[in-house]
C-alpha cells in the first residue's frame, strides 16, 4: 500500500527520529529524542506535497510558514529555512520539541488522512538545531526605534514571544522575571530530558540579541507594581504573561506529610535548581523507592519520568479516568511506558498515610468507573463504593493542575479577574480591563500549552504595537 502510494509521489511513512534507548535513558537526564540528521530531514521534508492551500498553517498558533520552510529544507537551505520560521516564531527549537503538533499543524496535514503526517515539529527542531550548530544567528529585519517602552512580566513562552515580536517592531522591551533565570515553565517545569536548558538559554540569547533586556529577581506585585512600572519607570504598555504558577493539592488528609510534593516543587527542584546533581549543586531532592504521581497530563508524565531517573524502583501514574482521557501527549505516554512507568487507571487517592515520623508510608485509594460526560466532554469518573485499597508508596507527587497566583491581581487596581482568579482579557487582542495592560498565556485561560502562550504572545504584540502607535484603547 505504502509502496503503491509512493509511486504516485506520496510517501505515507515518516522518517523515524532516533531516540536514546529506554534502558539507558532512565539512568540519565540527557535529551531522549536525538533529532534528525541532514539526510533524514531532507527525506522527511520531501514527503511534503506543498499544498496550494496549506491546512497545516491554520493549525499553527505561531503562524509558522510551514510549506515554505519545508521546501527550503528539501533544497538543503537549512539556514534559510530557519530564517523563514523566525519570521513568525522566535522559539523554534522549543516549539519543535514541546508543541503538541499532533493536535495542531500535523493533525491538519493532508497526509494525515491516509497515513502519517509530515513530521513538522521534528523538521522545525532540526533547522533550529542546525542553525545553532553552525553558530549563526538569523535575525529578522528590525523596524527603526519607536521610542516606546514595554514591560513584559514573566519570561515564559508567552512573554518571550511578545518581547521578540515587539523588539522587531522597534519598541524597547524589558522582561521582568521572578525567578533567577529567564524561561519560566520552560526552565523550571519541563525536564532536561525533554527540553535541554541550553536550548532555552539559546533562544533567550537570541531574544537578547534583538535588544530585549531581562531583569530577573523581580516579583511584580511585590518588588514593583504595575502602576510603578507605568507611572514611575516610564513604560507605555505592560504585558502580563505570568502563567498559572500556583500548585493545586487534592485537599485530602495527609498532604502535608513528608514525602508529598506538588509537581511544581518536584520539577523545580530538579530542573531549575538541578537537584539531580546534588551535592555538587546545593538544592536536594528526596525520592523514595515507590513513587506515585497523581494526574494524567504532561506535567504528570514529566514528574514520573523524573522520579525514575532519580532512582525510584517503581514509578506509578495514578489517574482517575482511563488512558483515553489522559490529557498528556501520546508521545509522552509512550515514552513513559517504554521507560517502565506503571499506569494505574480509574484510581483516585482518598488519603495519604504517614508513619510515626511523619513520612509517607502508603496511599489509600478508591477505584473509579466512568459515568456521564462532564462539562469538559470527558466521561466523569465516579467512585465505586467499597473498593478502597492501600497503595504501597513512600513518595507522592501531586500533578493535578495549577491555578492563578494572585499577587499581581491583588496589587493592580483596575485589573479585572474572573471567578477562578484568571485575568480577564480579550481573546483576540489580549487587552485587559486596565488601559495599557495586556495579558496572555495561562494567566488568562488556565494551564494549557506552550504554543497557546506563543499564539497569545503574537496577538498581544500586534495589539500592543497598534496601541503604541495610535493610542487607541
Amino acid at each position, binding site marked *: 500500500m505504502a509502496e503503491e502510494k509512493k509511486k504516485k509521489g506520496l510517501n505515507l511513512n515518516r522518517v523515524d527520529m532516533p531516540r536514546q534507548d529506554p534502558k539507558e535513558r532512565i539512568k540519565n537526564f540527557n535529551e531522549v529524542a536525538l533529532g534528525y540528521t541532514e539526510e533524514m530531514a531532507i527525506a522527511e521534508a520531501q514527503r511534503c506535497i506543498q499544498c496550494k492551500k496549506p491546512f497545516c498553517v491554520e493549525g499553527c498558533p505561531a503562524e509558522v510558514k510551514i510549506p515554505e520552510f519545508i521546501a527550503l529544507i528539501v533544497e538543503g537551505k537549512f539556514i534559510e529555512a530557519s530564517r523563514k520560521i523566525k519570521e513568525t516564531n522566535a522559539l523554534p527549537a522549543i516549539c519543535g520539541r514541546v508543541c503538541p503538533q499532533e493536535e495542531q499543524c500535523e493533525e491538519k496535514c493532508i497526509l494525515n488522512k491516509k497515513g502519517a503526517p509530515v513530521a513538522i515539529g521534528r523538521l522545525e527542531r532540526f533547522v533550529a538545531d542546525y542553525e545553532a550548530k553552525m553558530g549563526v544567528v538569523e535575525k529578522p529585519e528590525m523596524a527603526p526605534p519607536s521610542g516606546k517602552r514595554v514591560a513584559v512580566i514573566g519570561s515564559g513562552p508567552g512573554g518571550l514571544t511578545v518581547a521578540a515580536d515587539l523588539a522587531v517592531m522597534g519598541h524597547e522591551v524589558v522582561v521582568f522575571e521572578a525567578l533567577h533565570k529567564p524561561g519560566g515553565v520552560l526552565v523550571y517545569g519541563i525536564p532536561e530530558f525533554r527540553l535541554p536548558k541550553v536550548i532555552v538559554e539559546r533562544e533567550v540569547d537570541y531574544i537578547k540579541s534583538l535588544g530585549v533586556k531581562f531583569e530577573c529577581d523581580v516579583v511584580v506585585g511585590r518588588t*514593583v507594581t504595575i502602576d510603578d512600572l507605568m507611572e514611575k519607570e516610564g513604560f507605555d504598555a505592560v504585558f502580563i504573561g505570568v502563567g498559572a504558577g500556583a500548585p493545586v493539592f487534592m485537599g485530602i488528609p495527609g498532604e502535608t506529610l513528608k514525602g508529598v510534593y506538588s509537581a511544581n516543587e518536584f520539577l523545580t527542584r530538579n530542573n531549575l535548581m538541578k537537584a539531580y546533581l*546534588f551535592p555538587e549543586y546545593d538544592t536536594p531532592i528526596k525520592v523514595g523507592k515507590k513513587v506515585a504521581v497523581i494526574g494524567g497530563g504532561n506535567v504528570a508524565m514529566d514528574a514520573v519520568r523524573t522520579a525514575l531517573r532519580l532512582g525510584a524502583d517503581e514509578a506509578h501514574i495514578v489517574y482517575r479516568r482511563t488512558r483515553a482521557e489522559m490529557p498528556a501527549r501520546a508521545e509522552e505516554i509512550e515514552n513513559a511506558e517504554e521507560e517502565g512507568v506503571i499506569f494505574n487507571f480509574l484510581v483516585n487517592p482518598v488519603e495519604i498515610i504517614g508513619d510515626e515520623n511523619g513520612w509517607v508510608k502508603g496511599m489509600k485509594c478508591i477505584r473509579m468507573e466512568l459515568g456521564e460526560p462532564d462539562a469538559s466532554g470527558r466521561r466523569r469518573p465516579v467512585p465505586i463504593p467499597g473498593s478502597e485499597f492501600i497503595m504501597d508508596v513512600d513518595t507522592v507527587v501531586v500533578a493535578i493542575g495549577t491555578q492563578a497566583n494572585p499577587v499581581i491581581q491583588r496589587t493592580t487596581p483596575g485589573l479585572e479577574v474572573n471567578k477562578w482568579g484568571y485575568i480577564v482579557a480579550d481573546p483576540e487582542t489580549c487587552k485587559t480591563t486596565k488601559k495599557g495592560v495586556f495579558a496572555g498565556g495561562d494567566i488568562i485561560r488556565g494551564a494549557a500549552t506552550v504554543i497557546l502562550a506563543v499564539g497569545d504572545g503574537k496577538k498581544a504584540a500586534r495589539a500592543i504595537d497598534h496601541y503604541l502607535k495610535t493610542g487607541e484603547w
Partner: protein
Amino acid sequence: MFKIVEKRDWHPLICEMWIEAPRVAKKHRPGQFVILRLHEKGERIPLTVVDKKPEEGLIRIIFQKVGKTTFELGSFNPGDSLADVVGPLGRPTHIENYGTVVGIGGGVGIAPLYPILKGMKEAGNKLITILGARNKDLLILEDEVKAISDEVIVTTDDGSYGKKGFVTDALKELIDAGTKIDQVVAIGPAIMMKFVVKTLEPYNIPCIVSLNAMMLDGTGMCGVCRVTIGDEVKFVCVDGPEFDGYKVDFDELMSRLTIYVEEEKIALERFKKAHPEIFAGVE
C-alpha cells in the same frame, strides 16, 4: 549582582550584612523577607530583612550559620556579591496601636522581630521585649532593641547573662505580675513559639508568630512551605510568614523542617572538607 557593602560578625556563628538590593530596600515593610542565592550552584534560602536604607539601596540581614549555605554566606566579605536577592516577599506585619505589645525574640529570631518592634513602637504601643539566647555570646541586637523598648528582659539558657531560663519563664512572670498585655509577637525557633502560645493560652492573650518554613521559590509556586493553620493549609511564603499563633500546627511545621536533615549534613560535611579554613575556631 547584589553587592555586600558591610559585614559584622556578632559571634563566630552569627553574622550581619548590608547588601545592595535597591528595589527591595524601596519596597520593604516590617515582616517581609527575601530569598537569596549565593552563586550558580547555590540553593535559594529565605532570610528576613532586619533593616533598610532606601536612599542608599541597602538592606540588612542577620543570620546564624547552621548549614552549608549560611556558613558559605558567612565567608563572603564586603565587595563580594550574591547571585540573587529577591523580594520583599510575604505579607507585611499588620501594625496598629494595640496598647501594650510584648515582643519575644529567641536566638536569631530577634533579627526579624526587630523591624516589627520598631513599627509597633512607631504606632504608639507600649513595648515590653523579652530576648532569649542560649548564652550571652549568642545574644544579638540588645542595644537596638533597648533603644525602642519601654522595658527589656533578657534570658539565657545557661544564666550567663540576664535571667537564667527560657523566654516563656519571663513571659509567665510578666503575666503573674499582673502586666496588662494586649498583643504578643513571638519569633524564634518553632518550639519556642509553640511554648509561648501554650503559656498565653490560659489567658487568651493574642499572639502573632512568624514561621521559618522551608522555601524554594518563595512566590507561591511550589508549596513546600505549606503548613496547617486552623483547618486550612496555607503557604508561609505568600499567606504568611505571620499567622495567629493559636492556629498554627507547630508539630507539623517542625516535622516538615526535618525533611532534608540527612542531605543538609552531607552538604555541610562536604563543604567543611573543601574549606576547613572557614570552620577554624568554630566548635
